[in-house]
């Protein structure tokens, strides 16, 4: 299960808890807003990871090029 599938599953779980009266409307709303933030966290983390991989590639390329200088 990837991260976004996990978030979809959590949405179902929260809705079930709300429908069953285990959490009130304000709590349900807060949890759904939290899920939105979790999605943003996932996107922001992917952007940072992309830069980290690029940084590694650039440094490797510079080292390789330096060997010829």
């Amino acid at each position, binding site marked *: 299960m990837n*991260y976004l599938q996990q978030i979809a599953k959590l949405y179902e779980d*929260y809705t079930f*808890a709300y429908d069953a009266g*285990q*959490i*009130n409307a*304000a*709590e349900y709303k*807060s*949890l759904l*807003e*939290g*899920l939105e*933030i*979790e999605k*943003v*966290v*996932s996107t*922001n*983390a992917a*952007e*940072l*990871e992309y*830069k*980290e991989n*690029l*940084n*590694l*590639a*650039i*440094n*490797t*390329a*510079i080292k*390789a*090029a330096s060997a*010829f200088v």
Partner: protein
Amino acid sequence: MKKLIVAAIIATSLSGCVLLDAYFMAGYDTNEYALVNKIKTKAELSVEDCKDVKKSRQNAEDLYFIAIEMKNFAENIPRNVDTTKLATNLVELTKQGKEQYAKDSNVSEIFCKLKLQQISRSAEVAQKVIGKKPR
């Protein structure tokens, strides 16, 4: 030679801004990593207190404080915009928990557990990438 070709491909297929951003990005910082780890650990351990509303309110406030501390630490490090974004996300998430306790004197145990799980998961996602920043 193969690596030079890869370097040439990277250099020609990406804009200068992306390359500069990646090359000069802020490196790994022990304090930053410690703060995100603290958020994750505190969220995990606080689940045990969810039956006690008073303790849980304090835990929610503590988590918010640590997230703010992390954001304040990260935001003034040059070329650290991505980590600052993650810290800001954690501030928003912990603020939601804190606000729920501020406006409701009878927060449910299940909400407490689910909100802490959200914070813990997000902190873990952030921790994994922060730990991989260049040394």
